[in-house]
């Protein structure tokens, strides 16, 4: 009897602590969520108020309600250069194809140069030069060389995506734990098997981290490519809106781009969790 009493007391205490912790966590989530909504209202409301009913300011800066109206019109009636979904699809196609090719090339070159020291030393100055030029300017060259079609945009996207992925892959190879390589080698792995079983998985933590930034570059490449010359796409839509003093149109296209980027980010995070599921979960520690 005397022994049983403290045991039940401890049990309820633990349950209390756990439910209190859950409550605290939920409370915190709700607070964060409403703060986020509040911030959005303040920003958009402030914008709307500052612009007010001043027609000149609306033309110059746009206004949130006008942007919303513009989006509705585009979705319902299509844009000046064709249905909205066609523009989104065109930009996405350029960005995705370029992203995939650029990423693949970046990983391949990074791993190859990382593994073969001689090649790294030979190529190093050329890569530094290529990386230091503002690559966005190459867009003009590509449009001149390949015309206004999809090829020039894809090439620009590849060039923009490649270097980020390449440098991360290269660094990732350099950062591989030497013991992992020694261990696999002694277990009987050939150089190629070491690359496949040890170097590549290890470098993927670096490579996947670069994909988040790279997809942003892919969208920029596609949009700028369309700016520089094209028939369709969100970049063309923005150029059109700018040409007709339609600030709301520019903002509306930007909203669409933002949504596209967020969706892509979601999928890249899924991919990241899938590829890196062997990593220990982050444990909570004291906030310092």
């Amino acid at each position: 009897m005397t022994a049983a009493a403290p045991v039940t007391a401890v049990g309820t205490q633990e349950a209390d602590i756990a439910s209190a912790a859950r409550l605290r966590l939920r409370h915190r989530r709700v607070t964060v969520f409403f703060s986020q909504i509040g911030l959005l209202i303040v920003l958009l409301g402030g914008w709307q108020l500052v612009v007010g009913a001043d027609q000149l300011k609306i033309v110059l800066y746009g206004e949130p309600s006008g942007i919303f109206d513009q989006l509705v019109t585009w979705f319902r009636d299509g844009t000046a250069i064709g249905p909205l979904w066609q523009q989104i699809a065109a930009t996405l196609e350029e960005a995705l194809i370029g992203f995939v090719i650029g990423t693949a090339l970046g990983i391949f070159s990074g791993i190859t140069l990382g593994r073969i020291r001689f090649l790294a030393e030979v190529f190093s100055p050329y890569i530094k030069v290529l990386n230091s030029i503002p690559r966005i300017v190459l867009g003009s060259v590509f449009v001149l060389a390949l015309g206004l079609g999809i090829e020039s945009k894809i090439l620009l996207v590849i060039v923009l995506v490649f270097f980020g992925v390449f440098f991360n892959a290269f660094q990732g190879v350099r950062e591989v734990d030497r013991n992992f390589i020694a261990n696999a080698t002694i277990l009987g792995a050939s150089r190629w098997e070491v690359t496949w079983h040890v170097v590549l998985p290890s470098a993927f933590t670096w490579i996947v981290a670069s994909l988040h930034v790279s997809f942003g570059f892919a969208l920029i490449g596609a949009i700028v490519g369309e700016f520089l010359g094209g028939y369709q796409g969100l970049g063309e839509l923005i150029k059109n809106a700018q040409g007709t003093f339609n600030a709301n149109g520019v903002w509306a296209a930007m909203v669409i781009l933002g949504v596209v980027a967020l969706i892509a980010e979601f999928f890249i995070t899924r991919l990241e969790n899938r590829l890196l599921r062997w990593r220990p979960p982050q444990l909570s520690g004291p906030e310092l």
Partner: protein
Amino acid sequence: MSNPSPLFSTPLSTRQPAIDLQNVTKRFTTPSGSSYTAIRDLTLQVAPGEFCAIVGPTGCGKSTTLTLVSGLEHPSAGKVEVHGKQVIGITPGVGFMFQTDAVLPWKSVLDNVIMGPRFRGTDKVNAIASAKDWIRRVGLAGFEDRFPHQLSGGMRKRVALAQSLINEPAVLLMDEPFSALDVQTRAIMSNELLELWDVTRPAVIFVTHDLEEAIALADKVVVMTAGPGGTVKNTFHIDLPRPRVVQEIRFERRFVDLYQQIWEALRSEVDIAYSQSTHADMKAAS
């Protein structure tokens, strides 16, 4: 098994050590061009099936000796032979257990253990069967699908042990394999190591800082001099009977005697190494 040729009048097993280092020197060159001598003129032999422990102060070249035998590094001078063959490239038939975790964190326990046979060309079905058998032998049955981060430090060492032993190495090199473990887990792992070692009886070089561990495990304890340019100072034969229970053997009279003898040899080297490192620290500080 006697050979008619007069050249082989004695059986190979007594003639030929499993590991043979003759007057080996290893120099490392730093990128700035200066060189560092890790071991100098080291001679050491380990017979087939012999358990040899190397003790010595920090920086005396213990680990370098292992990398030379494994073929990860090659000597600047002298001769390194394993089973009578000079070491060129990675030595075949060698297992290596590292001080830090070297099991691949992105592979499950099974995929880690299976690597050795797969790299050596065993087909997948047989490799899985033998990997499962070894996982069971090191006491990890049921954990095949776990990732290393889901295991404790001792369990990761078991994975590393299975990973090395599955190749049935004739030579097993261990570089302070249990130094990261807590004292109790370490004793348990040492016992299990001895049991597993007894099954296939590879020649072992076991590098450690811990003299107690060395005496409890080994047939022969080699004391190295302080580095740079460490070499063999003394060799002690451990005549404690096997099988041994690592946790209890240290209370035996003979164990204590051996400990005192070897410590006598080791102490002066530890003092030299310590005064060198504090000198270097004080130089760096001033």
